[in-house]
């Protein structure tokens, strides 16, 4: 299976703390995308990082990519209760079909 894996599977933190989620993948990629899924809803795209990029920022989000280790991390700074959701990485290689990981469930306590 080419499915990537997020780590940890679950993360529980207090509001104001930082949250770090990791994603490992198995094949060469063109880009890697991070998505958020609130309970009972579809996925929402957060950020895309290309294989030739090492770091990308968007607001309170910071994504890094290490192609030598086939891994990526998503950092959410100064977390809020509204950040409570599941977070998925999706690797995209030569195919138009992305491969999603199993996700990290983040709970931010107010």
């Amino acid at each position, binding site marked *: 299976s080419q499915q990537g894996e997020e780590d940890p599977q679950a993360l529980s933190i207090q509001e104001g703390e930082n949250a770090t989620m990791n994603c490992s993948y198995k094949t060469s990629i063109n880009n890697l995308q991070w998505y958020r899924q609130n309970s009972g*809803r579809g996925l*929402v795209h957060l950020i895309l990082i*290309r294989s030739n990029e090492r770091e990308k920022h968007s607001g309170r989000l910071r994504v890094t990519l290490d192609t030598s280790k086939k891994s990526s991390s998503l950092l959410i700074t100064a977390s809020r209760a509204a950040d409570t959701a599941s977070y*998925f990485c999706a690797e995209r290689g030569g*195919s*138009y*079909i992305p491969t999603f990981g199993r996700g990290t469930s983040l709970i931010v306590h107010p």
Partner: protein
Amino acid sequence: GAGVSQSPSNKVTEKGKDVELRCDPISGHTALYWYRQRLGQGLEFLIYFQGNSAPDKSGLPSDRFSAERTGESVSTLTIQRTQQEDSAVYLCASSWGQSTQPQHFGDGTRLSIL
């Protein structure tokens, strides 16, 4: 503008019945994907449509599953002779087609097989 719309939002049916799920993609999006998400799990790819090209059906788990899309518009996913293991959320996503473009998801159809 309007996002991806899926209907019904919930479907409860008896084992052995056929079900049809509908997806209205964002207007102009050439690519359309169907995924299955079991409780607490990631997304399992089912089928991919790109414009008028032949669909990629490599993710369909059995011949009970089929999907159609007319041009770049509505798609329907049909599950025949439903089984209890078909219970899941079925998500549809659309995009402009290039691999660098994000996917836009509907809120899914929650399918429960009794």
